[in-house]
């Protein structure tokens, strides 16, 4: 069975600080990896995704993530956060065999102005 672990439950940063959110997954086969963002009171939206190729993927709003296969990790980064980045961030993994996406428990990011 596939599982996803997000290490940080709540992260508080000041504007312009750098961000890194950890994500590790457990699955022996080929996976697709995602980061979704949920702004307060809204639905989940895709930030970025990795299917294959360059392990460093860039998403919307200046976010990027790096897939490190040997570490089963897909950490999310942003060099300089803004107040508007305050949201819930979910890492997710899907596989062809499972036919579904499994989500981590989410990380709440609060950015202080």
């Amino acid at each position, binding site marked *: 069975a596939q599982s996803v672990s997000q290490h940080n439950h709540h992260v508080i940063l000041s504007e312009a600080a750098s961000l890194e959110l950890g994500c590790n997954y457990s699955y022996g086969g080929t996976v*697709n990896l*995602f980061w*979704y963002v*949920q702004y307060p009171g*809204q*639905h*989940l*939206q*895709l930030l970025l*995704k990795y*299917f294959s190729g360059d392990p460093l993927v860039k998403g919307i709003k200046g976010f990027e993530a790096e897939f490190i296969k040997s570490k089963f990790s897909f950490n999310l980064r942003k060099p300089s956060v803004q107040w508007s980045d305050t949201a*819930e961030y*979910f890492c*997710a*993994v*899907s*596989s*062809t065999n499972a*036919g*579904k*996406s*499994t*989500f981590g*428990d*989410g990380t*709440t990011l609060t950015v202080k102005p």
Partner: protein
Amino acid sequence: DTAVSQTPKYLVTQMGNDKSIKCEQNLGHDTMYWYKQDSKKFLKIMFSYNNKELIINETVPNRFSPKSPDKAHLNLHINSLELGDSAVYFCASSASGGHTGELFFGEGSRLTVL
């Protein structure tokens, strides 16, 4: 145009009642899902349908009954509502039988059971 739309957005009801949530997607996807998000924001899959066929049922009480009249619609009916059913229910869809995994979510239906 809303790609994945759910109705109602808010639902407040008494314990023991029966309620339904409807979902429609206009993305041409063939797979649809129901996810439950609890008060701690944890997101868990409940059901998945591919071309009207149930393919995932994740240990959900049989008070929950999904129905997919066609591949663009997936409804969720809940019988005998309990306090623990209070949550936000998200509908989602994906293409290619779900194998790519990229999900498109609706805006959620917040269910409050009193």
